[in-house]
């Protein structure tokens, strides 16, 4: 096997790109879970819809940047509707019920995508401005992939500023600690839950548009990646945003390096990492033991 530092470095960069998609998905899952204790099983379908809606808007406007903004907003809107009309009626019932309902929703969405856009995948070209490759000194790396890394970094920093530096962010953090007290202070938490579900789904939509030029657009595109994102959330610690970021990047690297050294193990290695983490540190990297169990 040809092996040198440059190939290894470029493989690490590829892993970083894959990791950013995991991070965006896991952040949404973790945010929703942290505040609402809902496992959004349809997260992968929202990711898929993000890619398709991005494709649709791109075809309509011929402008990638508009698609990049509009598709996540549409997904955020869909998230708002989902929380209000599908998930909210289940509060106060078994903790499994929202998971079951969103599982049904994911079946419906994937099948609807097949019906509307067909079973064949679509190709989604990166914007002309990012079409080439950039010389990183050790290798040429696709400019679009570098853009994905940068865009994710911007989103993560913005999300952090929002949660840590704004009043609304303070309310959200307080809500994850003790919703009863937050309510007693006269804050309408229903609106906060609605908003957080919307933000989580918008992040899934953004991940979908960003991933589309790299991974293609097809109805089942969200299935495998959402299961891997569940693993990221478990490894990072459920409800921990820092955990989602660290574990997302780590698993991206692990998958990328395994693809390089032992291609057949690439599908499996994610789950092996999870098994090891479960044995050594069951609550995940940043999870509090006993939280939400």
């Amino acid at each position: 096997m040809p092996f040198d530092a440059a190939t290894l470095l470029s493989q690490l960069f590829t892993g970083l790109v894959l990791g950013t998609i995991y991070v965006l998905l896991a952040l949404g899952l973790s945010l929703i879970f942290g505040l609402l204790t809902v496992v959004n099983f349809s997260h992968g379908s929202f990711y898929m819809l993000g890619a398709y809606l991005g494709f649709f808007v791109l075809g309509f406007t011929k402008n990638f940047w508009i698609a990049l903004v509009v598709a996540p907003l549409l997904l955020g809107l869909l998230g708002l509707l989902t929380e209000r009309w599908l998930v909210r009626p289940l509060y106060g019932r078994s903790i499994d019920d929202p998971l079951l309902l969103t599982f049904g929703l994911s079946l419906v969405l994937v099948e609807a995508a097949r019906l509307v856009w067909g079973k064949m995948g679509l190709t989604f070209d990166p914007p002309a401005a990012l079409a080439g490759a950039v010389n990183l000194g050790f290798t040429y790396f696709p400019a679009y992939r570098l853009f994905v890394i940068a865009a994710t970094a911007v989103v993560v920093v913005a999300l952090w500023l929002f949660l840590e530096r704004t009043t609304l962010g303070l309310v959200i953090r307080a809500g994850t600690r003790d919703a009863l007290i937050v309510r007693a202070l006269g804050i309408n938490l229903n609106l906060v839950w609605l908003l957080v579900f919307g933000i989580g789904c918008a992040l899934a939509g953004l991940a979908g548009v960003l991933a589309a030029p790299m991974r293609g657009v097809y109805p089942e595109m969200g299935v495998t990646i959402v299961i891997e994102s569940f693993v990221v959330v478990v490894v990072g610690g459920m409800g921990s945003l820092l955990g989602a970021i660290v574990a997302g990047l780590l698993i991206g690297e692990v998958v990328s390096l395994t693809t390089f050294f032992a291609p057949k193990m690439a599908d499996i290695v994610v789950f092996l990492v999870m098994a090891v983490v479960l044995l050594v540190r069951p609550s995940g990297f940043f999870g509090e033991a006993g939280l939400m169990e």
Partner: protein
Amino acid sequence: MGRVGALIARHPIPAFFVVFAVFPFVVPYKALATQVLIYGLFALGFNLLYGYTGLLSFGHAAFFGLGAYGTGVTLARLGVTSVWAGLAAGLVLAAAGGALIGYLCLRRRGIYFAMLSLAFAQLLYFVGFHLSWITGGDDGLRGIPVLPVGLAGVRVSIETPLAFYYFVLVVVGAAVAVLKRILDSPFGAVLQAIRENTDRAAACGYDVTRVKLLSFVFSGAFAGLAGGLNALYLQVVPIDTLYWTTSGQVVMMALLGGAGTFFGPFVGAGVFLILEDVLSVFTESWPLVVGAIFMAFVRFLPRGIWGTVVGLEIMGGLDGPPKPPERSHTPRGTRGVARP
């Protein structure tokens, strides 16, 4: 109606045999009846874990698949000529898988359980996919022979669809009787105690994790037996047997029928398969309709069909009062209990 209900409640196993003895003559074709029995058993195994112990597994494809490959490999690759030995191999493999996956999944409780079981089942899918020299990989495991079955010293042919159906009925009926015995035992009572209140069961001195693990092993064994029967029925094990969609199907079957009720899973398997059969005539997009129906059930009819029927006054006493898993869900913290 009330008296019929009481009769079924008192003699569930004979009632099961009577209903399914005439069942193949009621449905449009025999193959559908066989599938209802096999998937009913699969859903019954799933329900032992979800409906009775309160653990939602999204990875039961793993045990169905282990059973199918265990039985299939024994008969098709190892040259064993006893159907019983084949089924036993599948059952043991699935139970062992249940022990291993259960041990790992039970490291985390609550909602994690569903995600972990899903992930481990997916792991097994990829392993099965790559180990093509054993499993046949993407092409599926082919060449599972239809062997005569040794029953009380006589070898009986099960080649006709009806003979095969009754063979499946005997196996599934026996499994149902065993499960009934398990649930009526003190062990079964502990399972339900854990579902109702895990902390109290632990306070009463029960080793909750051990009981859950045992429940996992039993559940895997029943699912594995169903998988083995399915391998005999199809004479091939497609790789999709291990795919997460299989797990999703059994979740839907158990919930449509009624989780936590004894016969609900059979009702659910029947409704699901007949629905699939009828809808796929009209539209390729039948999963869309089934998914929407499933969502409506979660929202409006969480007890499922059988759970709702037996909950009606008129059927009083049938199957006992249905108890869907009750782990109250409110967004974090609203319970007003300070967390450590």
